Protein backbone atom coordinates (compact mmCIF):
# COMPACT_ATOMS: atom_id res chain seq x y z
CA UNK A 1 0.00 0.00 0.00
CA UNK A 2 2.61 2.52 1.04
CA UNK A 3 4.81 1.61 -1.87
CA UNK A 4 1.90 2.28 -4.21
CA UNK A 5 1.14 5.72 -2.81
CA UNK A 6 4.83 6.38 -2.56
CA UNK A 7 5.23 5.66 -6.24
CA UNK A 8 2.40 7.98 -7.19
CA UNK A 9 3.89 10.73 -5.04
CA UNK A 10 7.21 10.56 -6.79
CA UNK A 11 5.49 10.47 -10.16
CA UNK A 12 3.69 13.75 -9.51
CA UNK A 13 7.08 15.36 -9.03
CA UNK A 14 8.32 13.95 -12.32
CA UNK A 15 5.00 14.96 -13.95
CA UNK A 16 4.74 11.57 -15.60
CA UNK A 17 1.36 9.95 -14.91
CA UNK A 18 1.39 6.37 -13.72
CA UNK A 19 -1.56 4.06 -14.41
CA UNK A 20 -4.20 4.91 -11.84
CA UNK A 21 -3.52 2.76 -8.78
CA UNK A 22 -6.07 2.17 -6.08
CA UNK A 23 -5.34 4.76 -3.43
CA UNK A 24 -6.21 4.22 0.21
CA UNK A 25 -9.21 6.48 -0.23
CA UNK A 26 -10.54 4.77 -3.36
CA UNK A 27 -10.16 1.39 -1.69
CA UNK A 28 -11.80 2.66 1.49
CA UNK A 29 -14.72 4.12 -0.43
CA UNK A 30 -15.20 0.86 -2.33
CA UNK A 31 -15.31 -1.08 0.94
CA UNK A 32 -17.59 1.43 2.62
CA UNK A 33 -20.10 1.32 -0.22
CA UNK A 34 -20.52 -2.40 0.34
CA UNK A 35 -21.14 -1.90 4.08
CA UNK A 36 -24.89 -1.45 4.40
CA UNK A 37 -24.82 -0.49 8.10
CA UNK A 38 -22.23 2.19 7.43
CA UNK A 39 -24.38 3.70 4.69
CA UNK A 40 -27.44 3.76 6.97
CA UNK A 41 -25.41 5.38 9.75
CA UNK A 42 -23.94 7.96 7.38
CA UNK A 43 -27.49 8.81 6.30
CA UNK A 44 -28.55 9.18 9.94
CA UNK A 45 -25.66 11.55 10.61
CA UNK A 46 -26.55 13.49 7.44
CA UNK A 47 -30.15 13.68 8.65
CA UNK A 48 -29.04 15.24 11.95
CA UNK A 49 -26.89 17.74 10.06
CA UNK A 50 -29.92 18.55 7.89
CA UNK A 51 -32.15 19.10 10.94
CA UNK A 52 -29.50 21.31 12.52
CA UNK A 53 -29.15 23.32 9.31
CA UNK A 54 -32.92 23.79 8.89
CA UNK A 55 -33.17 24.86 12.52
CA UNK A 56 -30.28 27.29 12.06
CA UNK A 57 -32.16 28.81 9.10
CA UNK A 58 -35.25 29.11 11.37
CA UNK A 59 -37.20 26.90 8.99
CA UNK A 60 -38.21 24.32 11.58
CA UNK A 61 -38.91 24.36 15.30
CA UNK A 62 -39.01 28.10 15.41
CA UNK A 63 -39.78 29.83 17.68
CA UNK A 64 -39.11 27.30 20.40
CA UNK A 65 -39.75 29.57 23.36
CA UNK A 66 -43.48 30.19 23.04
CA UNK A 67 -46.27 28.53 24.97
CA UNK A 68 -47.93 25.84 22.88
CA UNK A 69 -49.88 24.02 25.57
CA UNK A 70 -50.41 23.58 29.29
CA UNK A 71 -47.51 23.18 31.66
CA UNK A 72 -46.33 19.55 31.44
CA UNK A 73 -48.98 18.72 28.83
CA UNK A 74 -48.43 15.04 27.99
CA UNK A 75 -47.45 13.95 24.46
CA UNK A 76 -50.27 13.75 21.94
CA UNK A 77 -50.40 12.95 18.26
CA UNK A 78 -52.64 15.91 17.28
CA UNK A 79 -49.81 18.16 16.07
CA UNK A 80 -46.09 17.73 15.43
CA UNK A 81 -45.12 20.20 18.13
CA UNK A 82 -47.02 18.18 20.75
CA UNK A 83 -45.56 14.78 19.84
CA UNK A 84 -43.28 15.01 22.87
CA UNK A 85 -45.59 17.06 25.08
CA UNK A 86 -44.69 20.32 26.79
CA UNK A 87 -42.23 21.39 29.48
CA UNK A 88 -42.92 23.34 32.69
CA UNK A 89 -43.57 26.58 30.79
CA UNK A 90 -45.76 24.85 28.21
CA UNK A 91 -43.07 24.97 25.51
CA UNK A 92 -42.90 22.24 22.90
CA UNK A 93 -40.41 19.52 23.89
CA UNK A 94 -40.23 18.43 20.24
CA UNK A 95 -39.03 21.90 19.26
CA UNK A 96 -36.57 21.95 22.13
CA UNK A 97 -35.18 18.57 21.04
CA UNK A 98 -34.73 19.90 17.49
CA UNK A 99 -33.06 23.06 18.77
CA UNK A 100 -30.90 20.83 20.97
CA UNK A 101 -29.81 18.97 17.83
CA UNK A 102 -28.69 22.27 16.37
CA UNK A 103 -26.78 23.08 19.57
CA UNK A 104 -25.12 19.66 19.63
CA UNK A 105 -24.12 19.67 15.94
CA UNK A 106 -22.87 23.23 16.31
CA UNK A 107 -20.65 22.25 19.24
CA UNK A 108 -19.41 19.17 17.40
CA UNK A 109 -18.50 21.23 14.33
CA UNK A 110 -16.82 24.10 16.15
CA UNK A 111 -14.78 21.79 18.36
CA UNK A 112 -13.67 19.38 15.63
CA UNK A 113 -13.02 22.00 12.94
CA UNK A 114 -10.80 24.00 15.28
CA UNK A 115 -9.09 21.25 17.26
CA UNK A 116 -8.20 18.94 14.36
CA UNK A 117 -6.05 21.49 12.47
CA UNK A 118 -4.28 22.36 15.74
CA UNK A 119 -3.64 18.69 16.46
CA UNK A 120 -2.50 17.93 12.91
CA UNK A 121 -0.13 20.89 12.71
CA UNK A 122 1.45 20.54 16.16
CA UNK A 123 1.61 16.73 15.92
CA UNK A 124 3.21 16.74 12.49
CA UNK A 125 5.73 19.42 13.44
CA UNK A 126 6.70 17.49 16.58
CA UNK A 127 7.04 14.20 14.71
CA UNK A 128 8.77 15.62 11.65
CA UNK A 129 11.33 17.91 13.23
CA UNK A 130 11.95 16.08 16.50
CA UNK A 131 14.51 17.61 18.87
CA UNK A 132 13.62 20.41 21.27
CA UNK A 133 10.50 21.34 19.30
CA UNK A 134 9.18 17.82 19.77
CA UNK A 135 10.03 17.88 23.47
CA UNK A 136 8.28 21.23 23.93
CA UNK A 137 5.10 20.12 22.17
CA UNK A 138 5.02 16.78 23.99
CA UNK A 139 5.54 18.57 27.31
CA UNK A 140 2.72 20.95 26.45
CA UNK A 141 0.19 18.28 25.64
CA UNK A 142 1.22 15.98 28.46
CA UNK A 143 0.70 18.89 30.84
CA UNK A 144 -2.73 19.71 29.43
CA UNK A 145 -3.81 16.09 29.46
CA UNK A 146 -2.63 15.74 33.06
CA UNK A 147 -5.26 18.21 34.18
CA UNK A 148 -8.55 16.28 34.32
CA UNK A 149 -10.67 17.77 31.55
CA UNK A 150 -13.58 18.48 33.88
CA UNK A 151 -11.30 20.48 36.17
CA UNK A 152 -9.71 22.30 33.24
CA UNK A 153 -13.18 23.17 32.07
CA UNK A 154 -14.28 24.38 35.48
CA UNK A 155 -11.10 26.43 35.74
CA UNK A 156 -11.62 27.91 32.26
CA UNK A 157 -15.25 28.71 32.91
CA UNK A 158 -14.21 30.32 36.17
CA UNK A 159 -11.54 32.39 34.41
CA UNK A 160 -13.62 33.41 31.37
CA UNK A 161 -17.09 33.36 32.88
CA UNK A 162 -19.51 30.49 32.42
CA UNK A 163 -21.13 29.88 29.09
CA UNK A 164 -20.73 28.36 25.69
CA UNK A 165 -17.46 30.18 24.81
CA UNK A 166 -15.68 28.84 27.86
CA UNK A 167 -16.97 25.39 26.97
CA UNK A 168 -15.69 25.68 23.38
CA UNK A 169 -12.25 26.76 24.56
CA UNK A 170 -12.10 24.02 27.17
CA UNK A 171 -13.20 21.28 24.77
CA UNK A 172 -10.82 22.47 22.04
CA UNK A 173 -7.89 22.75 24.44
CA UNK A 174 -8.22 19.09 25.38
CA UNK A 175 -9.48 17.46 22.19
CA UNK A 176 -6.56 18.37 19.90
CA UNK A 177 -4.26 16.20 22.01
CA UNK A 178 -5.43 12.82 20.68
CA UNK A 179 -4.95 13.97 17.09
CA UNK A 180 -1.52 15.41 17.85
CA UNK A 181 -0.36 12.15 19.47
CA UNK A 182 -1.44 10.06 16.47
CA UNK A 183 0.09 12.49 13.95
CA UNK A 184 3.37 12.68 15.83
CA UNK A 185 3.67 8.89 15.84
CA UNK A 186 2.83 8.60 12.16
CA UNK A 187 5.23 11.35 11.11
CA UNK A 188 8.06 9.71 13.04
CA UNK A 189 7.32 6.50 11.13
CA UNK A 190 6.94 8.13 7.72
CA UNK A 191 9.74 10.70 7.71
CA UNK A 192 12.41 8.05 7.05
CA UNK A 193 10.46 6.18 4.35
CA UNK A 194 11.86 6.05 0.81
CA UNK A 195 9.27 8.34 -0.75
CA UNK A 196 10.10 11.14 1.67
CA UNK A 197 13.82 10.66 1.11
CA UNK A 198 13.15 10.73 -2.63
CA UNK A 199 11.19 13.97 -2.30
CA UNK A 200 14.01 15.36 -0.19
CA UNK A 201 16.63 14.55 -2.80
CA UNK A 202 14.48 16.29 -5.41
CA UNK A 203 14.78 19.42 -3.30
CA UNK A 204 11.36 19.46 -1.65
CA UNK A 205 11.03 21.96 1.20
CA UNK A 206 10.06 20.94 4.73
CA UNK A 207 6.65 22.46 4.15
CA UNK A 208 6.11 20.49 0.98
CA UNK A 209 7.35 17.27 2.57
CA UNK A 210 5.03 17.67 5.54
CA UNK A 211 1.87 18.76 3.75
CA UNK A 212 2.25 17.44 0.20
CA UNK A 213 4.02 14.14 0.78
CA UNK A 214 3.48 12.76 4.27
CA UNK A 215 0.10 14.22 5.21
CA UNK A 216 -1.87 12.60 2.34
CA UNK A 217 -0.50 9.24 3.44
CA UNK A 218 -1.74 9.63 7.01
CA UNK A 219 -4.91 11.57 6.26
CA UNK A 220 -7.21 8.64 7.02
CA UNK A 221 -6.41 9.13 10.72
CA UNK A 222 -7.97 12.58 10.46
CA UNK A 223 -11.31 11.15 9.30
CA UNK A 224 -11.28 8.55 12.09
CA UNK A 225 -10.41 11.19 14.63
CA UNK A 226 -13.11 13.48 13.31
CA UNK A 227 -15.89 10.98 13.91
CA UNK A 228 -14.56 10.13 17.38
CA UNK A 229 -14.13 13.75 18.43
CA UNK A 230 -17.48 14.81 17.09
CA UNK A 231 -19.16 12.16 19.20
CA UNK A 232 -16.99 13.08 22.19
CA UNK A 233 -17.95 16.74 21.91
CA UNK A 234 -21.66 15.91 21.85
CA UNK A 235 -21.32 13.69 24.91
CA UNK A 236 -19.23 16.28 26.77
CA UNK A 237 -21.77 19.03 26.14
CA UNK A 238 -24.47 17.01 27.84
CA UNK A 239 -22.37 16.15 30.90
CA UNK A 240 -20.90 19.64 31.28
CA UNK A 241 -24.23 21.39 30.85
CA UNK A 242 -25.67 19.05 33.42
CA UNK A 243 -22.90 19.96 35.88
CA UNK A 244 -23.72 23.63 35.33
CA UNK A 245 -20.66 24.68 33.31
CA UNK A 246 -21.95 24.29 29.76
CA UNK A 247 -24.69 25.68 27.56
CA UNK A 248 -26.97 28.23 29.18
CA UNK A 249 -30.06 30.02 27.92
CA UNK A 250 -30.74 27.96 24.80
CA UNK A 251 -32.17 24.44 24.59
CA UNK A 252 -29.62 21.66 24.55
CA UNK A 253 -29.89 17.97 25.29
CA UNK A 254 -27.86 18.58 28.45
CA UNK A 255 -30.27 21.28 29.65
CA UNK A 256 -33.24 19.04 28.92
CA UNK A 257 -31.77 16.14 30.89
CA UNK A 258 -30.97 18.55 33.70
CA UNK A 259 -34.63 19.67 33.78
CA UNK A 260 -35.75 16.05 33.69
CA UNK A 261 -33.93 15.39 36.97
CA UNK A 262 -36.75 17.12 38.84
CA UNK A 263 -39.55 16.12 36.48
CA UNK A 264 -39.27 12.35 36.76
CA UNK A 265 -40.73 12.24 40.27
CA UNK A 266 -43.88 13.94 38.90
CA UNK A 267 -44.17 11.31 36.17
CA UNK A 268 -42.98 13.67 33.42
CA UNK A 269 -40.81 11.43 31.28
CA UNK A 270 -41.07 13.06 27.84
CA UNK A 271 -38.31 15.64 28.13
CA UNK A 272 -35.81 12.99 29.26
CA UNK A 273 -36.97 10.66 26.49
CA UNK A 274 -36.67 13.32 23.76
CA UNK A 275 -33.12 14.29 24.67
CA UNK A 276 -31.90 10.76 25.46
CA UNK A 277 -33.28 9.17 22.30
CA UNK A 278 -32.02 11.99 20.08
CA UNK A 279 -28.57 11.62 21.57
CA UNK A 280 -28.61 7.82 21.59
CA UNK A 281 -29.36 7.59 17.86
CA UNK A 282 -26.57 9.90 16.72
CA UNK A 283 -24.01 8.43 19.11
CA UNK A 284 -24.95 4.92 17.95
CA UNK A 285 -24.61 6.01 14.32
CA UNK A 286 -21.18 7.53 15.02
CA UNK A 287 -20.05 4.41 16.88
CA UNK A 288 -20.96 2.08 14.01
CA UNK A 289 -19.71 4.49 11.36
CA UNK A 290 -16.41 4.91 13.20
CA UNK A 291 -15.90 1.14 13.24
CA UNK A 292 -16.73 0.82 9.55
CA UNK A 293 -14.38 3.66 8.65
CA UNK A 294 -11.61 2.07 10.68
CA UNK A 295 -12.05 -1.22 8.83
CA UNK A 296 -12.47 0.43 5.43
CA UNK A 297 -9.40 2.65 5.76
CA UNK A 298 -7.10 0.13 7.43
CA UNK A 299 -4.19 -0.29 5.01
CA UNK A 300 -3.35 -3.66 6.58
CA UNK A 301 -6.58 -5.24 5.29
CA UNK A 302 -6.63 -5.74 1.54
Amino acid at each position, binding site marked *: MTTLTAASNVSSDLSKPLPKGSSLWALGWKRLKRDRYAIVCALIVAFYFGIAFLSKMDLIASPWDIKVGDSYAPPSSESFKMWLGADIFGRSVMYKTIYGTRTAIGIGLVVTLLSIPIGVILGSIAGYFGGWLDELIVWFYTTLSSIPSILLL*IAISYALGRGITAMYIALISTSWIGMARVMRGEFIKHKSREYVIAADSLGASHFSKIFKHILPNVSHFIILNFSMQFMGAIKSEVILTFLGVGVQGIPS*WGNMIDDAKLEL*ARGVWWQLTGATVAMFVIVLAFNILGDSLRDALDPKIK
Partner: protein
Amino acid sequence: MATFLVRRILGAIPIIFGVALVVFILFNVVGGDPALMMVGKHATAQQIADIRHEYGLDQPLIIQFFHYLKDIATFDFGRSYATRQKISDMIANGIGPSLSLTLPAFTLTTLVSVALGLLVSYFRGKVIDRVSVILCVIGMSIPSLGYILFGQYYLAYELRWFPISGYDYSFPGRFEYLFLPMILWLMLSIGYDVRFYRTAMLEETTQDYVRTARAKGLSEPKVFFKHVLKNSMVPIVTNVVLEIPLLILGSFLFETFFGIPGLGSITIDALHNSDFPVIKTMAFVTSLLLIFGNIVTDVVYALVDPRVKLK
Protein backbone atom coordinates in the same frame (compact mmCIF):
# COMPACT_ATOMS: atom_id res chain seq x y z
CA MET B 1 12.97 -1.31 39.83
CA ALA B 2 14.11 1.50 42.15
CA THR B 3 15.89 3.38 39.36
CA PHE B 4 12.84 2.94 37.16
CA LEU B 5 10.64 4.50 39.83
CA VAL B 6 13.05 7.37 40.47
CA ARG B 7 13.31 8.12 36.75
CA ARG B 8 9.57 8.03 36.37
CA ILE B 9 9.07 10.38 39.33
CA LEU B 10 11.76 12.78 38.10
CA GLY B 11 10.08 12.74 34.70
CA ALA B 12 6.86 13.89 36.35
CA ILE B 13 8.43 17.07 37.74
CA PRO B 14 8.30 19.15 34.51
CA ILE B 15 4.69 18.03 34.07
CA ILE B 16 3.77 19.08 37.62
CA PHE B 17 5.49 22.40 36.98
CA GLY B 18 3.49 22.76 33.76
CA VAL B 19 0.24 22.03 35.56
CA ALA B 20 1.08 24.63 38.22
CA LEU B 21 1.84 27.13 35.45
CA VAL B 22 -1.43 26.49 33.60
CA VAL B 23 -3.46 26.67 36.80
CA PHE B 24 -1.68 29.86 37.83
CA ILE B 25 -2.21 31.50 34.43
CA LEU B 26 -5.89 30.58 34.37
CA PHE B 27 -6.65 31.83 37.86
CA ASN B 28 -4.23 34.68 38.46
CA VAL B 29 -3.65 36.08 34.96
CA VAL B 30 -6.64 35.38 32.69
CA GLY B 31 -9.25 35.13 35.41
CA GLY B 32 -9.50 38.80 36.18
CA ASP B 33 -9.32 40.01 39.75
CA PRO B 34 -10.16 37.11 42.06
CA ALA B 35 -10.70 39.53 44.93
CA LEU B 36 -13.49 41.24 43.00
CA MET B 37 -15.09 37.90 42.19
CA MET B 38 -14.97 36.84 45.81
CA VAL B 39 -16.46 39.91 47.46
CA GLY B 40 -18.96 40.72 44.73
CA LYS B 41 -20.01 44.00 43.18
CA HIS B 42 -21.01 45.83 46.31
CA ALA B 43 -17.71 45.70 48.19
CA THR B 44 -15.85 48.77 49.33
CA ALA B 45 -12.37 49.54 48.04
CA GLN B 46 -11.00 48.77 51.50
CA GLN B 47 -12.56 45.27 51.52
CA ILE B 48 -11.08 44.51 48.10
CA ALA B 49 -7.67 45.74 49.18
CA ASP B 50 -7.84 43.57 52.32
CA ILE B 51 -8.69 40.47 50.31
CA ARG B 52 -5.98 41.23 47.79
CA HIS B 53 -3.51 41.55 50.61
CA GLU B 54 -4.69 38.39 52.39
CA TYR B 55 -4.20 36.28 49.27
CA GLY B 56 -1.02 38.08 48.21
CA LEU B 57 -2.66 39.40 45.05
CA ASP B 58 -1.10 42.84 45.42
CA GLN B 59 2.35 41.53 44.53
CA PRO B 60 3.88 41.19 41.03
CA LEU B 61 2.79 38.08 39.12
CA ILE B 62 6.20 36.44 39.13
CA ILE B 63 6.41 36.77 42.92
CA GLN B 64 2.87 35.39 43.20
CA PHE B 65 3.91 32.42 41.08
CA PHE B 66 6.91 31.70 43.30
CA HIS B 67 4.67 31.92 46.36
CA TYR B 68 2.28 29.53 44.67
CA LEU B 69 5.08 27.02 43.95
CA LYS B 70 6.20 27.30 47.58
CA ASP B 71 2.66 26.69 48.81
CA ILE B 72 2.39 23.66 46.57
CA ALA B 73 5.66 22.22 47.82
CA THR B 74 4.51 22.57 51.43
CA PHE B 75 0.93 21.46 50.71
CA ASP B 76 -0.35 24.71 52.14
CA PHE B 77 -3.32 25.74 50.03
CA GLY B 78 -4.82 28.35 52.33
CA ARG B 79 -8.46 28.56 53.33
CA SER B 80 -11.72 28.34 51.47
CA TYR B 81 -13.29 31.70 50.88
CA ALA B 82 -16.83 30.45 51.40
CA THR B 83 -16.44 28.24 54.48
CA ARG B 84 -13.12 29.52 55.90
CA GLN B 85 -12.08 25.89 56.31
CA LYS B 86 -8.49 24.90 55.58
CA ILE B 87 -8.46 23.52 52.05
CA SER B 88 -6.06 20.74 52.98
CA ASP B 89 -8.63 19.58 55.58
CA MET B 90 -11.40 19.73 52.99
CA ILE B 91 -9.36 17.52 50.67
CA ALA B 92 -8.55 15.12 53.49
CA ASN B 93 -12.27 14.83 54.25
CA GLY B 94 -13.28 14.51 50.63
CA ILE B 95 -10.80 11.96 49.43
CA GLY B 96 -12.27 9.16 51.56
CA PRO B 97 -15.78 9.29 50.08
CA SER B 98 -14.36 9.75 46.58
CA LEU B 99 -12.08 6.73 46.82
CA SER B 100 -14.78 4.64 48.53
CA LEU B 101 -16.86 5.13 45.40
CA THR B 102 -14.33 5.12 42.56
CA LEU B 103 -11.97 2.33 43.59
CA PRO B 104 -14.56 -0.43 44.21
CA ALA B 105 -16.65 0.72 41.23
CA PHE B 106 -13.66 0.70 38.90
CA THR B 107 -12.30 -2.62 40.18
CA LEU B 108 -15.71 -4.25 39.86
CA THR B 109 -16.17 -2.87 36.34
CA THR B 110 -12.75 -4.07 35.21
CA LEU B 111 -13.14 -7.57 36.69
CA VAL B 112 -16.62 -8.10 35.26
CA SER B 113 -15.65 -6.70 31.85
CA VAL B 114 -12.49 -8.80 31.57
CA ALA B 115 -14.44 -11.93 32.55
CA LEU B 116 -17.19 -11.18 30.04
CA GLY B 117 -14.65 -10.25 27.37
CA LEU B 118 -12.92 -13.57 27.85
CA LEU B 119 -16.21 -15.45 27.75
CA VAL B 120 -17.41 -13.67 24.63
CA SER B 121 -14.14 -14.16 22.77
CA TYR B 122 -14.25 -17.85 23.73
CA PHE B 123 -17.58 -18.09 21.88
CA ARG B 124 -16.33 -15.95 18.96
CA GLY B 125 -18.47 -16.12 15.85
CA LYS B 126 -21.32 -17.84 17.68
CA VAL B 127 -24.72 -16.30 18.37
CA ILE B 128 -23.79 -15.36 21.96
CA ASP B 129 -20.80 -13.40 20.64
CA ARG B 130 -22.74 -11.53 17.98
CA VAL B 131 -25.57 -10.67 20.36
CA SER B 132 -23.17 -9.35 22.98
CA VAL B 133 -21.32 -7.19 20.46
CA ILE B 134 -24.63 -5.62 19.43
CA LEU B 135 -25.59 -5.14 23.10
CA CYS B 136 -22.20 -3.55 23.79
CA VAL B 137 -22.55 -1.01 20.97
CA ILE B 138 -26.08 -0.15 22.10
CA GLY B 139 -24.94 0.04 25.73
CA MET B 140 -22.09 2.42 24.98
CA SER B 141 -24.37 4.68 22.92
CA ILE B 142 -26.89 5.30 25.69
CA PRO B 143 -26.07 8.64 27.35
CA SER B 144 -24.50 8.13 30.78
CA LEU B 145 -26.92 10.58 32.37
CA GLY B 146 -29.76 8.44 31.03
CA TYR B 147 -28.49 5.47 33.08
CA ILE B 148 -28.06 7.55 36.19
CA LEU B 149 -31.44 9.30 36.00
CA PHE B 150 -33.25 6.09 35.20
CA GLY B 151 -31.46 4.16 37.94
CA GLN B 152 -32.08 6.80 40.57
CA TYR B 153 -35.72 7.20 39.58
CA TYR B 154 -36.66 3.59 39.03
CA LEU B 155 -34.44 1.57 41.38
CA ALA B 156 -34.28 4.07 44.24
CA TYR B 157 -37.46 6.17 44.01
CA GLU B 158 -40.01 3.71 42.60
CA LEU B 159 -38.76 0.36 43.86
CA ARG B 160 -37.08 1.76 47.00
CA TRP B 161 -34.26 -0.77 46.78
CA PHE B 162 -31.63 1.87 47.54
CA PRO B 163 -31.52 5.27 49.25
CA ILE B 164 -32.09 8.07 46.71
CA SER B 165 -29.05 10.05 47.80
CA GLY B 166 -26.90 10.82 50.79
CA TYR B 167 -23.84 9.47 52.55
CA ASP B 168 -22.84 7.93 55.85
CA TYR B 169 -19.28 8.31 57.11
CA SER B 170 -19.32 5.06 59.14
CA PHE B 171 -17.37 2.30 57.49
CA PRO B 172 -19.70 -0.43 56.33
CA GLY B 173 -22.63 2.01 56.52
CA ARG B 174 -21.35 4.08 53.59
CA PHE B 175 -21.77 1.22 51.17
CA GLU B 176 -25.52 1.30 51.57
CA TYR B 177 -25.36 4.66 49.77
CA LEU B 178 -22.56 3.70 47.38
CA PHE B 179 -24.12 0.50 46.09
CA LEU B 180 -26.44 2.05 43.52
CA PRO B 181 -23.79 4.44 42.10
CA MET B 182 -21.46 1.45 41.74
CA ILE B 183 -24.03 -0.61 39.86
CA LEU B 184 -24.77 2.32 37.54
CA TRP B 185 -21.05 2.88 37.03
CA LEU B 186 -20.73 -0.75 35.99
CA MET B 187 -23.69 -0.45 33.62
CA LEU B 188 -22.48 2.65 31.86
CA SER B 189 -18.92 1.45 31.30
CA ILE B 190 -19.48 -2.23 30.61
CA GLY B 191 -20.46 -1.82 26.94
CA TYR B 192 -17.24 -0.11 25.93
CA ASP B 193 -15.03 -2.25 28.16
CA VAL B 194 -16.34 -5.66 27.14
CA ARG B 195 -16.01 -4.77 23.48
CA PHE B 196 -12.49 -3.47 23.99
CA TYR B 197 -11.36 -6.58 25.89
CA ARG B 198 -13.05 -8.88 23.37
CA THR B 199 -11.10 -7.25 20.52
CA ALA B 200 -7.85 -7.41 22.49
CA MET B 201 -8.35 -11.09 23.29
CA LEU B 202 -9.36 -11.99 19.75
CA GLU B 203 -6.15 -10.37 18.56
CA GLU B 204 -4.24 -12.65 20.91
CA THR B 205 -6.00 -15.76 19.59
CA THR B 206 -4.43 -15.25 16.15
CA GLN B 207 -0.91 -15.34 17.60
CA ASP B 208 1.45 -18.23 16.98
CA TYR B 209 1.70 -19.25 20.61
CA VAL B 210 -2.02 -20.00 20.66
CA ARG B 211 -1.64 -22.26 17.63
CA THR B 212 1.26 -23.99 19.34
CA ALA B 213 -0.74 -24.45 22.53
CA ARG B 214 -3.58 -25.97 20.55
CA ALA B 215 -1.20 -28.13 18.53
CA LYS B 216 0.32 -29.63 21.62
CA GLY B 217 -3.18 -30.75 22.60
CA LEU B 218 -4.25 -28.25 25.26
CA SER B 219 -8.01 -28.01 25.67
CA GLU B 220 -9.65 -24.80 24.47
CA PRO B 221 -10.57 -23.52 27.98
CA LYS B 222 -6.97 -24.11 29.06
CA VAL B 223 -5.67 -22.19 26.05
CA PHE B 224 -7.90 -19.30 27.00
CA PHE B 225 -7.38 -19.14 30.72
CA LYS B 226 -3.70 -20.03 30.78
CA HIS B 227 -2.36 -18.31 27.69
CA VAL B 228 -4.75 -15.79 26.19
CA LEU B 229 -5.74 -14.18 29.49
CA LYS B 230 -2.14 -13.82 30.62
CA ASN B 231 -1.05 -12.22 27.37
CA SER B 232 -4.07 -9.93 27.31
CA MET B 233 -2.83 -8.28 30.49
CA VAL B 234 -0.96 -5.68 28.43
CA PRO B 235 -4.02 -4.32 26.57
CA ILE B 236 -6.01 -4.61 29.80
CA VAL B 237 -3.52 -2.42 31.67
CA THR B 238 -3.43 -0.04 28.69
CA ASN B 239 -7.17 0.40 28.91
CA VAL B 240 -7.02 0.89 32.67
CA VAL B 241 -4.44 3.66 32.16
CA LEU B 242 -6.65 5.32 29.58
CA GLU B 243 -9.63 5.20 31.90
CA ILE B 244 -8.02 6.82 34.94
CA PRO B 245 -9.05 10.35 33.90
CA LEU B 246 -12.59 9.01 33.54
CA LEU B 247 -12.53 8.08 37.22
CA ILE B 248 -12.33 11.75 38.10
CA LEU B 249 -15.17 12.66 35.73
CA GLY B 250 -17.21 9.76 37.07
CA SER B 251 -16.66 10.85 40.62
CA PHE B 252 -17.88 14.36 39.72
CA LEU B 253 -21.00 13.05 38.05
CA PHE B 254 -21.99 10.49 40.65
CA GLU B 255 -21.08 12.62 43.65
CA THR B 256 -23.18 15.58 42.54
CA PHE B 257 -26.04 13.26 41.63
CA PHE B 258 -26.11 11.17 44.76
CA GLY B 259 -24.97 13.79 47.26
CA ILE B 260 -21.70 12.05 48.14
CA PRO B 261 -19.41 14.59 49.88
CA GLY B 262 -16.27 13.77 47.89
CA LEU B 263 -13.80 15.88 45.93
CA GLY B 264 -16.26 16.23 43.03
CA SER B 265 -19.03 17.66 45.20
CA ILE B 266 -16.60 20.01 46.92
CA THR B 267 -15.46 21.39 43.55
CA ILE B 268 -18.95 21.83 42.13
CA ASP B 269 -20.04 23.59 45.33
CA ALA B 270 -16.96 25.81 45.11
CA LEU B 271 -17.86 26.68 41.52
CA HIS B 272 -21.36 27.74 42.55
CA ASN B 273 -19.91 29.86 45.37
CA SER B 274 -17.13 31.35 43.17
CA ASP B 275 -14.74 29.94 45.76
CA PHE B 276 -11.48 30.83 44.00
CA PRO B 277 -8.92 29.17 46.31
CA VAL B 278 -10.80 25.87 46.40
CA ILE B 279 -11.26 25.51 42.62
CA LYS B 280 -7.64 26.43 42.06
CA THR B 281 -6.43 23.85 44.57
CA MET B 282 -8.75 21.15 43.24
CA ALA B 283 -7.50 21.67 39.69
CA PHE B 284 -3.95 21.17 40.91
CA VAL B 285 -4.58 18.31 43.33
CA THR B 286 -6.66 16.21 40.92
CA SER B 287 -3.91 16.66 38.33
CA LEU B 288 -1.41 15.41 40.87
CA LEU B 289 -3.63 12.38 41.52
CA LEU B 290 -3.77 11.74 37.79
CA ILE B 291 0.01 12.00 37.36
CA PHE B 292 0.50 9.73 40.36
CA GLY B 293 -2.02 7.25 38.94
CA ASN B 294 -0.10 7.19 35.67
CA ILE B 295 3.14 6.38 37.48
CA VAL B 296 1.47 3.53 39.35
CA THR B 297 0.06 2.05 36.16
CA ASP B 298 3.45 2.37 34.47
CA VAL B 299 4.92 0.27 37.25
CA VAL B 300 2.11 -2.27 36.91
CA TYR B 301 2.75 -2.28 33.16
CA ALA B 302 6.37 -3.15 33.75
CA LEU B 303 5.35 -5.90 36.16
CA VAL B 304 2.88 -7.63 33.83
CA ASP B 305 4.90 -7.31 30.64
CA PRO B 306 8.43 -8.67 30.77
CA ARG B 307 9.10 -7.00 27.42
CA VAL B 308 8.94 -3.58 29.10
CA LYS B 309 12.44 -3.06 30.36
CA LEU B 310 12.87 -1.58 33.81
CA LYS B 311 15.67 0.70 32.75
